[in-house]
């Protein structure tokens, strides 16, 4: 079974400081990995994904994530956080077993960027 762990409920960071949101996964075979962001009362917005290729993936709004196969991690990072980055962040994984049409989502991390 595929699963995602986002160990921290909330991440607080000062504006201008680096932001990291942690994600580890469990899946059979090679994973497809995704990050989404959700603002209050909105749907999830796609930020970036890893399917194959370069382990460092760059996405929207200055975010990037690094795929680490040995540590089964896919942490989301931003070099300099903005107040507008305050939101709920979800990591998701899809295994590549046949007929798998589902994503497994983590519980989400609330990011609070302090002015």
């Amino acid at each position, binding site marked *: 079974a595929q699963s995602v762990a986002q160990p921290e409920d909330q991440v607080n960071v000062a504006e201008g400081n680096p932001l990291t949101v942690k994600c580890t996964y469990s899946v059979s075979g090679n994973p497809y990995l*995704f990050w989404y962001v959700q603002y209050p009362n909105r749907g999830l917005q796609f930020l970036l994904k890893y399917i194959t290729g370069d382990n460092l993936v760059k996405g929207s709004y200055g975010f990037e994530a690094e795929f680490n196969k040995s540590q089964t991690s896919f942490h989301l990072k931003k070099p300099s956080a903005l107040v507008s980055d305050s939101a709920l962040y979800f990591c998701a994984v899809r295994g590549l077993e046949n007929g798998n049409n589902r994503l497994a989502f983590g519980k989400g991390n609330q990011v609070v960027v302090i002015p």
Partner: protein
Amino acid sequence: SQTIHQWPATLVQPVGSPLSLECTVEGTSNPNLYWYRQAAGRGLQLLFYSVGIGQISSEVPQNLSASRPQDRQFILSSKKLLLSDSGFYLCAWRGRDDTQYFGPGTRLTVL
């Protein structure tokens, strides 16, 4: 470009009343479609997914049902709502790039 619509945006319903939430996708054909519920808190729960017209897979046995009467239409229904059905309902479609794209959501409050 592709867009996904959900309506209504908000809904307040009494316990025991029926429910119908609609999701439509534009700009693509034969997409995989998904219904999720996000309860207060944050976690996403997959309720149903569909790979084609009339093909529905149920992930969690409960008070809800889904139908796909047309290629780009996905409907979530209930005959009798429970208090526990309150939540934020999200529809998503899967693109050819294997990414799921989400609609704006429906906030359902059951009183």
